[in-house]
């Protein structure tokens, strides 16, 4: 699905944010991405959703070498990737509905399909009362849920979520994680960057830890929680010492 090999990334002439990042995500994997603030989680995700090119190294996505993909084919690939941006990136002049409908419409979906799916999903994330609200009139957590709905509406093959629960309470956060797991069960590969320890502890998925510009894995050997299929595995270039975090009640 995704393979990084000795990937390095720097912004402009700054220091290398990522160095020698090597890992592989199998199709259907579900990973948490953790690391200190400024460690490079968002940067790593940016590389995965093709917002940046790496300064060095090799990235394979959907089994194709990123460097060899011509510009015209990028939209097709991007349409298969759903992203929850850390800062939401909602379009302020479009209603919650139109924001969520955007990926479908860009994809050329039929309007009746759009109407059906978007309304349903917005209801699921608890925004049935705010379907026609503009983002500036939504609360922080409501915006975040619109952003999540937009990322999953088109059932992407790859879902990248950057701190998707920073503005919602744990009840909603758990519900959103269930949504992601549901998608994952239907075949979507999921990577969630988060600072929320309790979530990471509660949902026992493999953890990728970013530190010193490198990725290490922390395979949690505990049981995988009720009914969660686990057909994903990640192999990492750098094997680090994986501190085991005790599972905790919410």
């Amino acid at each position: 699905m995704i393979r990084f090999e000795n990937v390095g990334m720097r912004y402009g002439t700054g220091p290398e944010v990522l160095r020698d990042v090597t890992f592989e995500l199998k199709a259907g994997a579900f990973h948490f991405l953790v690391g200190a603030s400024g460690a490079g989680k968002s940067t790593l995700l940016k590389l995965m959703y093709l917002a940046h090119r790496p300064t060095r190294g090799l990235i394979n996505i959907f089994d194709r070498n990123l460097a060899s993909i011509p510009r015209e084919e990028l939209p097709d690939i991007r349409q298969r990737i759903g992203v929850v941006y850390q800062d939401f990136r909602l379009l302020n002049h479009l209603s919650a509905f139109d924001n969520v409908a955007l990926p479908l419409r860009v994809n050329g979906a039929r309007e009746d399909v759009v109407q059906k799916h978007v309304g349903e999903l917005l209801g699921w994330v608890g925004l049935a009362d705010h379907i026609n609200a503009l983002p500036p009139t939504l609360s922080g957590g409501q915006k975040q849920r619109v952003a999540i709905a937009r990322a999953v509406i088109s059932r992407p093959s790859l879902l990248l979520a950057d701190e998707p629960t920073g503005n919602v309470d744990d009840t909603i956060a758990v519900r959103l994680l269930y949504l992601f797991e549901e998608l994952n069960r239907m075949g979507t590969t999921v990577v969630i960057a988060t600072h929320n320890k309790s979530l990471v502890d509660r949902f026992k998925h493999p953890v990728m830890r970013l530190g010193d510009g490198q990725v290490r894995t922390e395979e949690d050997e505990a049981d995988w929680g009720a009914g969660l299929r686990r057909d994903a595995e990640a192999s990492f270039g750098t094997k680090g010492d994986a501190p085991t975090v005790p599972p905790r009640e919410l």
Partner: protein
Amino acid sequence: MAAGRQSDIPLSRDPSARFLPWIVAFLTYIAALSVAGYLALAQLSVDWNDGLSNAITVEITALEGEEDASINGRVQTTVALLRGYPGVESVEVLSRAKIREFLEPWLGKALDIGALPLPRLIDVRLSGDEDVDVVALNEKLAGSTGARADDHAIWRDRMERFLGSLEWAAIAIVAVVVAAAVIMVAFATRGSLAAHRETIELLHLIGARDDYIARQFQRHAMRLAMIGSVLGALAAMATAFLISQSASGLETGAGLGAETAYLPVVATLALPPISTIVALFTARRTVLKALRRMT
């Protein structure tokens, strides 16, 4: 909702939405008026030219101290000679009153025209079937009655050169106007691109193709150009109408009559579609070029 589908980028709130139509209107106005002006003058000159090229004026100047009777004799001889000349249709001796009428504006009231020994003028109309060699005619006249024929070649020549430069001026103005329009549209489009950089980036990341984005810009530019150019064309037509109205009140403006006015109107009507298409393609090219430089 369906409308929302095509306008993810809120272009209608850009400053360009306010200033571009006015600029296009102004440019269209200029272009329409210069083309219309050129066409009207060209039509006028065709009329004049027709008149002039089928006419020769023959002048007989009084000699120092010559009697009226003598001059009249010379005039009669000349008329007879002209009547027999091949290609001549009609010959008319201009009356003294007519000559005076012609000279008065030039001489003013200060000079007593009545006291002047005016030259006699003969108006000769040609059939236009044969070319009349004015040089040969002149030699013949000089040898017989001392009259001088003038085929207005200088005037026609001047007129032609004048129209030629007018034509160039009109073409130049239209070229400048088109260039200015292209520049302004490109300028406005680039402003909008910069203003909506984040939205465009998001659309890209969602998987929108360049064409999807460019279509929104080109539709926007097209709409603004259409509004502007229709306004400008209407204003130009109103101006042209007012001018032709007040001109037809004067004798000199007779050539701007209604029957010759359809050409400028057609030219003016052609401008809005042209502006709209120019705006569309300019916006499209500008956007696609800029988008290719983005990821």
